[in-house]
């Protein structure tokens, strides 16, 4: 492992610089969150007076109590949960079913090319915000969870990843054998393709879950009532826009919501699921990207 050049003085100086630089870069990525965490556990007065750095001042759970006590927050948390579970399940079911026929060869499935272009074209050209908004509105999906789930249910990019996975990972001999035994496509899909594809399904499911947890803009445009907001949308309204007009709450709750410590607590709670899953997702992401990059 150790080469001659690694013993030279200039390389040693470089190595010291390199370790320092990478450490600083890593700190820049983690310190903001630690700061927010420290603020969320600090006393309100200390936070307002800008006394909090990376460690809580006047440690208290007050901000978390106020957050948990806010029914708007809890309801949006539930909406997000529902959205993630239902959205991911539907999206995966639809995409897996579509990926199976599209993974066949052009010869085995006539018309495959046309279908492929039907999906790929949506990656190249979009109707844009206003027409999409009008379709969702005209269908009467506003103020229902379907407005958050259906429009994004088929991601052409994820679909291509699944197709590529099916093409490269399912042994053709296994499929041929099943064909000989008279199995139909549904059986082959269910009994052969799905069990083999568990890692790919896990990967794309995680992509989709992250997407749903983080999405907020559709909530803003399709939900007229705060009751239907997912957590990201709720936080966008009160923390980023600082718009409380949509909440019908008493003065005290309003006061609580605008406290710096409470905002910090809400930000941290929203970040928590991502913090918990991303070390696992990360590994899959690496695979997914490599999967996406090395095609034929």
């Amino acid at each position, binding site marked *: 492992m150790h080469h*001659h*050049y*690694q013993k030279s003085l200039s390389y040693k100086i*470089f190595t010291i610089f*390199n*370790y320092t630089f*990478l*450490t600083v870069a*890593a700190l820049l*990525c*983690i310190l903001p969150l630690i700061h*927010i965490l420290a*603020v969320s556990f600090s006393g309100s007065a200390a936070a307002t007076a*800008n006394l909090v750095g990376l460690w809580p001042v006047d440690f208290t759970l007050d901000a978390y109590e106020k957050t948990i006590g806010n029914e708007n927050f809890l309801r949006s948390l539930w909406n997000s949960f529902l959205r993630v579970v239902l959205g991911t399940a539907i999206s995966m079911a*639809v995409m897996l*079913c579509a990926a199976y*026929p599209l993974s066949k060869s052009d010869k*085995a*499935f*006539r018309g495959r090319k046309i*279908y*492929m272009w*039907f999906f*790929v074209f*949506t990656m190249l*050209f979009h*109707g*844009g*915000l*206003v*027409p*999409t908004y*009008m*379709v*969702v509105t005209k269908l009467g999906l506003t103020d229902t969870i379907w407005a958050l789930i259906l429009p994004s*249910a*088929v991601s052409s990019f994820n*679909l*291509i990843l699944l197709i*590529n996975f099916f093409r490269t990972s399912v042994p053709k001999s296994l499929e041929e054998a099943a064909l000989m035994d*008279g199995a139909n*496509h549904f059986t082959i899909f269910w009994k052969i393709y799905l069990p083999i594809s568990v890692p790919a399904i896990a990967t794309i499911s995680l992509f989709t879950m992250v997407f749903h947890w*983080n999405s907020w803009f559709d909530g803003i*445009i399709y939900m007229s009532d705060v009751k239907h907001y997912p957590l*990201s949308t709720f*936080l966008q309204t009160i923390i*980023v826009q600082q718009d409380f007009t949509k909440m019908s709450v008493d003065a005290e709750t309003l006061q609580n919501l605008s406290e*710096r410590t409470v*905002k*910090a607590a*809400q*930000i941290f709670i*929203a*970040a928590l699921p991502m*913090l918990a899953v*991303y070390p696992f997702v*990360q590994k899959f*992401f690496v695979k997914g990207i490599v999967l996406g*990059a090395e095609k*034929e």
Partner: protein
Amino acid sequence: MQPTVDLKQQTAAVGTRKQWKLKGTWQLHTMLLPALVIVFVFQYIPMLGLVMAFQDYEPWLGFLHSPWVGLEHFKTMFEYEDARQVIWNTLVISTLKIIFNLAIPLAFALLLNEIYVMKFKRTVQTIVYLPHFLSWVILGGILIDMLSPEGGMVNRVLTALFGIEPIFFLGDNDWFRTVVVVTDVWKECGFNTIVFLAALTSINPSLYEAAIVDGANRWQQTIYITLPSMLPIIIVVGTLSLGNILNAGFDQILNLYNPLVYKTGDIIDTYVYRVGLLNGDFSYATAVGLFKSIISFILVVTGYRLAYKYANYKIF
């Protein structure tokens, strides 16, 4: 169209194997159906809605009876000072992002590649991926707090170290674009590094061994072996990002901007949102959106072509 093809196939069919395949085709079409319907409804029908861009669309008249105005809205767009400024902002911000989101992750990958303590390397990697997984709502909340001129962490540190007056980063037109580009690179750097790291591991080690025999130091190896070997992936990333030249980061900017910085920070997407959905000027907003979609389409296709031509990259 599809049934006729099946019929033809059916008549031509011989042998059990082939017959099975034909019988099975309807199953394949059926499995595609849900995805086709969803994509048709939510992607293709909105494309039909683009006719609005050539009308003075009024909701109570609908598409059929709203008056046609031809290219009126497009003319307006180029005459409006606002719209021109927005297009310019979009180009400046996205170009800077494309350059830095290519160069910095590449440099970062090269630096990480020189780390031989695996534990350190993995820890750094894991930490720098983190911001990618957080939404711009969360990061917006954090940044608004940290960049605040009234005791935000960043200003406190700057004052302590250099004694400068607090800067209103998110409300100052001289600073806003810088903040947008820097925070975007900060968020995506780790993630963009992945693809370069993967390319680095696939370089043939014998190339380095030969170079070492020839007495090349690490810097020379980087210049003459590493970078040339990375060229295809650099070309792919570069050409594919061409399609993003009109995407300056809707999510990010909507969470960071405010009326004080519209002059430098308002981009096509945020403009379309405000004009279309908040002010209700559907037709004009659709025209601006269509203008963006068409240019993007040309650029995406060009990007793919170039990536294929120069790096043999194919998406499917």
